[in-house]
């Protein structure tokens, strides 16, 4: 049994998960990273993507749309703007997210960032297999 770290996933509206985990795969803004016990203290912002939590019970995936993660040696706290367990996510929900982001991209002054967001969401969609 590998040593574990405390994983918390909170959204503005509620706490979605608070479980021990052996590893947490985080979609960081600069690329994916995996946090395990003893990871250097890091704060990273998130891009839309899949957040995977591995523990003794198996792997659980969440779809997150942004926010940040705080990693310390003994725990990971993910503050996500929106977070939905992958098995609860439906295709229409994802479509709505993509549509919202594209709409924002059309209005946004920072074209690159907004387009990247749309691309991230679409990549996430493929990863989620919907």
């Amino acid at each position, binding site marked *: 049994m590998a040593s574990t770290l405390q994983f918390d996933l909170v959204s503005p509206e509620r706490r979605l998960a608070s479980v021990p985990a052996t590893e947490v795969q985080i979609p*960081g803004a600069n690329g994916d990273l995996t946090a395990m016990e003893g990871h250097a203290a890091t704060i*990273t*912002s998130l891009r839309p993507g899949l957040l995977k939590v591995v523990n003794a019970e198996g792997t659980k995936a969440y779809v997150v749309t942004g926010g*940040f993660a705080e990693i310390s040696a003994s725990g990971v*706290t993910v503050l996500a703007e929106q977070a939905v367990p992958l098995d609860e996510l439906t295709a229409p929900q994802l479509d709505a997210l993509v549509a919202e982001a594209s709409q924002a991209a059309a209005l946004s002054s920072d074209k690159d960032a907004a387009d990247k967001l749309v691309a991230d969401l679409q990549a996430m969609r493929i990863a989620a297999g919907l």
Partner: protein
Amino acid sequence: MPSLKDLKNRIGSVKNTRKITKAMQMVAAAKLRRAQEAAEAARPFAERMTAVMSALAAGVGTGEGAPKLLAGNGRDQVHLLVVMTSERGLCGGFNSSIVKLARSRAADLVAQGKTVKILTVGKKGREQLKRDWANAFVGHIDLSEVKRVGYANAQAIAREVMAAFEAGEADVVTIFYNRFQSVISQIPTEQQVIPAKFEATGASALYDYEPSEEAILADLLPRGVATQIFTALLENGASEQGARMSAMDNATRNAGDMINKLTIQYNRSRQAAITKELIEIISGAEAL
């Protein structure tokens, strides 16, 4: 002197009123529990957010090149007051206390030669401020269709506020709401959201930042504004139900007192009428 019939009607109507206020009180109690749960559920997010942001803000400082949402745009002329009130009345002094605070703040600012703009959230505050501050209104956000305040609502308000800030139409943004302390006590609170203010934290933990401190801070600040507004909305929601509950409790008790008084009055006048009739009969019989 009202007739017996009048009194009876009056008692009937007060009894109906009591039933209604009692029902409202119970509805408010149920809603209060839900609102409190929502506020509780949102707390971890807001707390972590504030903790991380204040650590970041302390690191980045407010010097040259700091994000505008943190350092301000260098001016202090136009103040945007976001006044959050309820959509419905019958909740005691809930709305009045917020409006009172906002009004005195606005008057202070005007006295200092600043420009005041007001954005209202919730119908009741708008109605109360309309008389003397109608010229300062820049917008209104209607939440009457919203059953449960969600983060999306807060984001919408935050977007509006930040758009005004970025367009240079507002330099300082302050929100007004009632902080929930207990069912009988709600504290009208003003909180400056732009430029962001953080209480200085002690030693900030040593973290690696990815991408950079500045980039994360720039990404977080808009979310921070939305989070603060969301927290305020939830606190306000709980306060509103708390205020309504105690107001309706008072009303129910008053109605009870009133019924007692009216019943006594009714019985007295009924007895008086009987006595009068008896006297008439007896004196009539004696006269024979």
